[in-house]
Structures are given as structure tokens and as C-alpha cells.
């Protein structure tokens, strides 16, 4: 089962621990500018903080842009063959997400390879707010689905008391839906 890194920007605080964890484990160096994941913060229009990291795309633009055929896929992970890379950075320009990075000390672009496919990636492991997650591909989009369902406009609401405190319950009313169907049917 393939797993991928997903980011939840709503949970990101912009602390950049992911950058440090990446650089320090992969490069053995204390330099967030050598990370394969970077946090972009925009404020105040709009207010958003988002870690940007490779999506391991199925049709990878970086791969097709590479004039040296140095980018390949192994077990679903998009990787760079260092010996073949000519350092032209065409892949960096081609990535629609800006998820490939360059550092002057390193000839080959920096790109996430899911910590060489060795289990839980370091950024996921160290993220203190759960903004970076590692999950099976078929689970992707669940957050959006959940948001979509929760914001379902026909939801009903009741207020009630529990241990003396007011509470609210939301529910999708089966009977109301049947009534609506009947009315629409009559029409």
C-alpha cells in the first residue's frame, strides 16, 4: 500500500521544525535551507501557513522536464539519479508546487524521497501540531470530504441540557428528507 505525505495547512503554526528535522536527518547539517520541505507563511492577505513538499505525482512534471532523464520513479517515489543530474534546475522550474529546492552548496536539487522510503518520514514524526501526515493514498481528500459533509446546509440543530450545561446536536434528518422528496414528487 502506497503512502504519501499530506499537509493540513490549518494546523500548521509555521515553526519550521519539519525543515530542521529534514535537513538534520538527511544532510546531517543544521541548516533549514537544506531541507526538502519548507514552510511558506503568508499574512495577512490571506492568513495561511503551509509546508510545501513533493506530492510524488503520478505524471511528474519534474520528470518530463528533465533533459538528462535523471528523474525516475521507484516504488511510487519520485527520485533523482545523482550521477545523471546536470544541475540545470529545469525540474525546479517545472514543479507546479515549487516543491523542489536548490542550495548553492549542493549540485543536485533537494527533493523529498519520503526519507528514502524508510517508514515514517522525519518531518511527519517531528511535526508538533499534526500538520504533516503520512497516509495511504486512498485516504487522501478525506479532510475535504469531511468538511463538505459537516457543512451540509440541510443539517438540523437542537439545543439541549447536559449536566446543567447547554449543548447542541446537529443531525441530518431522515424524515425531513423524505418529506422533501414527497413534496418535490407531488410537484
Amino acid at each position, binding site marked *: 500500500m502506497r503512502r504519501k505525505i499530506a499537509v493540513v495547512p490549518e494546523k500548521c503554526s*509555521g515553526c519550521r521544525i519539519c525543515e530542521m528535522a529534514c535537513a538534520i536527518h538527511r544532510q546531517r547539517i543544521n541548516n*533549514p535551507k537544506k531541507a526538502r520541505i519548507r514552510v511558506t507563511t503568508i499574512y*495577512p492577505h490571506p492568513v495561511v501557513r503551509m509546508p510545501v513538499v513533493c506530492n510524488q505525482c503520478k505524471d511528474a512534471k519534474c520528470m518530463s522536464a528533465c533533459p538528462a532523464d535523471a528523474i525516475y520513479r521507484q516504488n511510487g517515489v519520485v527520485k533523482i539519479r545523482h550521477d545523471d543530474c546536470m544541475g540545470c534546475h529545469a525540474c525546479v522550474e517545472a514543479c507546479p508546487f515549487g516543491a523542489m529546492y536548490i542550495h548553492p552548496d549542493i549540485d543536485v536539487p533537494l527533493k523529498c524521497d519520503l526519507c528514502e522510503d524508510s517508514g515514517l518520514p522525519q518531518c511527519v514524526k517531528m511535526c508538533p*501540531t499534526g500538520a504533516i501526515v503520512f497516509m495511504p493514498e486512498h485516504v487522501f481528500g478525506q479532510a475535504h470530504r469531511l468538511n463538505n459533509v459537516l457543512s451540509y446546509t440541510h443539517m438540523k440543530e437542537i439545543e439541549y441540557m447536559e449536566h446543567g450545561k447547554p449543548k447542541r446536536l446537529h443531525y441530518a434528518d431522515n424524515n425531513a428528507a423524505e418529506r422533501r422528496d414527497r413534496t418535490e414528487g407531488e410537484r
Partner: protein
Amino acid sequence: MKKHNGGYFRKILHVDMTGGATRTEAIDDEFIETYVGGRGFAVKLLWDNLIKNGPTDPLAPESMLVVAAGPLTGVYLPSSGKNSFASISPATRLFGDSSMGGGFGVELRQAGYDALAIVGKAPDLSYLFIDDDVVTIVPCPELKGKGNLETEGRIRDRLGDHGVRVASIGVAGENLVRFACVTSEWSRNAGRTGIGAVMGSKNIKAIVVRGHQDLPVAEIDKVIEISEQAYKELAAHDMMGHWQRQGLMGVVDYANAMGILPTHNFRDTHWEKSKSINGKTMLASYKIGNTACFGCPMCCGNINLVKEGKWAGTVTEGPEYESAAMLGSNLGVDSFASVLRGNHLCDELGIDTISTGNLIAALIEGYEKDLLTLDDLDGKPVIWGDDDRIMEIIEQIAECRCVGATLALGTKGVLERWPQLGPIVLHVKGLEQSAYDCRGASSMALAYGTSDIGAHHSRAWTVGKELEMGTDWGINEKTELVIYHQHIRSLFDMFGVCRLPWIELGFHEDFYAELYSAVVGQEYSLEDLLARSQHVYDMTRAINVKLGAAKGDDYPPARTFIPIHSGPLAGKVCNRDEYEQMLALYYKKRGWDEQGKPPITCD
């Protein structure tokens, strides 16, 4: 002498804004061993400048502005995003510094400098751009009068790089408001002692940095091991979730319950309406996100948005406790939206919320008690909780207009113009008091009184500890606690790390000594390091003595000696005799003479 194999770039960048000359000063192991970094480097640079130029107007070109990161700034460890801004303070005319969080210090280090020292005055409003080893002064007349948020955005756009770090001043800094701050990442402030005015006096709208270099770490494997254990411990801490959700806003309820919440210019220390400005109110209706400084899992910053009402659309990172209390309960403002608005204006215009909240509160009380006339207020009264008028005065302070022109001079200027406010302005050495009342805990009164920069809490925050466990302490314990805090907290500023994991999540001090040793590749004990911190503290005192500070400046605000009349600590007051005894003991324990002079002099 120890040889340090990591932790430092060994370079201090000197910039003269007058002619644009720059040079780098190399620092050796002796310098490192003596001053450690961060605030320690800043104190040494200001010391040398004071000897070279003698006492000068803090806003004169010869005055020096220092930005110093520490050897742990940007290192893989919890909460390593701190750096110090320091200068002779235009508010107190004594040593002044303020610590800023975020990522500015990390970037400065990545550009290859441990510290930056600026003198002179640019001919036109400019920003200083440090792009690794290329340093340029770029005129930016178009940014005159712009707020911090806009300035930061425009500079990023102009450079076409969203990743640069910007530390800017708002209109208040340009107008030399004595409590103007320096702001980075839109709302991370070096808030206290008016460093923003020093920047303004040099015609510097912003300092922009970009770097790419590796931070030197001697024993990287050891750092990883120690730090990841630390991250793990913090994550498992019971209070971690609370800190991530509420940050320092959780302190509002704590301070109110303990009876130390400043209310109506510290007349009261408990407020029945405190729920209107507490963390729960924020969570229920305003919070939209977290922010964190570099490397910090606690993410104590809250991003808040006002969604309805007259301040709808106001978005701000904050408030934290100080701002909520000083712009909320201390001004009688019982609407969280108004507190947010005030916080936003202070950030955008670039003034310190603590000083602002104190001075406006004194204005309101002064008017209420007929110490000020309607004419003094430009014919427009101001009363507790009058948020519209308070917002107007905040803008007037930054723009030096109307009554704001007087408040902009800070406590010292206000008291020259209106000496009758002496008993009601809460300050030490000319710096307004932070949002913790100290009458229930005399160690805190001593902490405020003896603080080198004035009445600031983060020099020694002993109030919580004394109220929680030391109500029967003698003056010996209290004095020792203050001195210990003044040294350990200085050490955090010297390292370039935040003190919150230590003070709030019980993280052990020894961790930092162990980690520093791994970073520099030399064994240091906590005692070694505290001895260096003490030396730096003595140097600061010597600077202050040279600039005219004396024993008379080491007393808490006048109100400290008047009993609290309501709340959990009703009747509590700082006893003057006890204070005198504590102060004498404090000097003695520090090895200072009876007048508070340290054994070293700044000559």
C-alpha cells in the same frame, strides 16, 4: 581558554549608516567565553561604544544599535528562535534591550553573523539589506509612514523573495516615539525600551536579511539525541495542549484568580469582567490559527480575526497575555474585539502594548482624578472602556499628534510635562510596568525595582513562584530567587532561546548547559554559564551607573506601597521596610556596594 568548535560564525558586522561603510570584526575564543552571545555580545558592544563616545543622546548618530543572535539561535532544539535588539534606551536613557522571537535571528546567523552593530544616520529613509556577505543600504522614501505589515509585504515584493526576514519599524519608530518597537514577521516584536525609535533616528525603516549558511554545530549527533528527547518530553507534557490552544492567553484566568491582573491602572488586581478578554473567549469566537517562533512546538502565538461588529476584518497575531491585560483590563476594555483592534494598531504603528496600556491608563485616571484638564485632552474626555477614544489615542501616539504627542515621550517625558501624574504612572527607571501586580509578592517588587531596563517582567518573573509556594518566605529566599532569575533569564537571552519551556513546562536548566556544550564542543556546566551571565549583568549595571542610575532608581512604582483594595489579595501591600532590607541584601549578595555600584566600572 576553551576552544569552541561550533556555535559561532565569529563575525560581527559593523555598519555605519552615515557613509554606508561596513566592516566585519572577528571575535576570538576569549570573547566567546566571556560573553557567550546574544545579549552578552550586545552588552559588550554597547560598553565599548560608551567608552569610545562617552554618554550620548540615545537618538544621536553615535548611539549604537545592536542586533545579536545567540549560539543556540536556529539550532535544532525547542524554541530557538530568539535574538536581542539592544541600545541605550531613549525611554530610560539607560541600557535597554528587548528580545524578539520568530526567525529573524536565525536568518542573521545563516547570513554568517553572530551580531550586527549599527551606528550613524542614513541621509534618507532606507532599509539595510544583508544578503549573506553583500551588505547594501537601499533608500526607500516610498515606505515613509507605512505600517509594519505593509512595509514587510512591500519589501518582500520588491526583492521578489518571499523568504527574506524583515525587521521593520512603523510610523511610531519614524516619529521617535520613546516606546516604539521593532517588528518582524508582521507581529513578532522587540517591544520594550524603545529600540524602534533608535532605528528611526538612524533613518532605518527596516533591516532585511537573507542567508544560506550552515549553523556550526560541533557534535551534531549529540544535539539530535538531546533535542529529540526534549521535543518528546515537551510533547508528552500535560500542559502542552493548553499552550498550543491558548498560548499566553491562558494567563488571563490565572492572573485574575491569583489577584495580579492589572485593572484600571493597577488600582485593582482582579476584574469581574476578565472572562470577556480571556483565552476561552478567544477560542470560542476569534482564533483562526497558531503561530510559532522558529523550532518551537508550543506555538504560543494566536492568530485572531474579528468577524463582526465595528472592528470586523481586524486580523492580528495576538494578543498574548501582556497585551490583553494592558489594553483590556487595565483600560477597562471588556470587549475582546476591541483588545484585538488595539493590539493590531500597536503592531501596525509599531508601539509597545505594555507601555501604551500603562500611559493611556494613567491618562484616564489622571483625568478622572482631576489631575488633568479637558484641555490637556484636546477637549475630548477619555474614560475607562472607551474603546473608540482609546484607539484614537493609540494612533495619536504613533503620529505624535494632540495628546499623543505628550504620551509619545514615554513616562519620563510625560512626567516632565505633567509632574502631578507621578504617583499614578507605574514605572521603574522610566519604563512602564508589565502586566503583573507585585503587591502580593514582594520578590516581584524587587524584580521590577532592580531590573536593569526598568519594570519589565521577563527579567525575573518570580510572582507566580512566590504566590504558589513562597508566601512564608523570608527576604533571603526572595532575594536569591530574584538574583537567580536575573541570571538564568539573561542566560536564555545570551543563548538566543526562549524561556517558556523552562518556566512554563518545567524544562530543566541543565538541558541548556548540556546542549550548549554539544554545540560548541566543550564541556560547560550550568554554574560556569551562570557566572558569565552574572558578569554580563554586572556590566549592564556599570553601564547604567555611568549613565547616571543610582540606588534611588531601584524602587518599584509608587502604587506598590499602597494596599490593594479588592480581590483575592485585598489588603496586600509591599512593605517599605521589608523592601529596604531586601534591596540592601540584594546589593550585598551581588557584591555591589551600599549604593548599588558593582565592582567594575565602565571606563
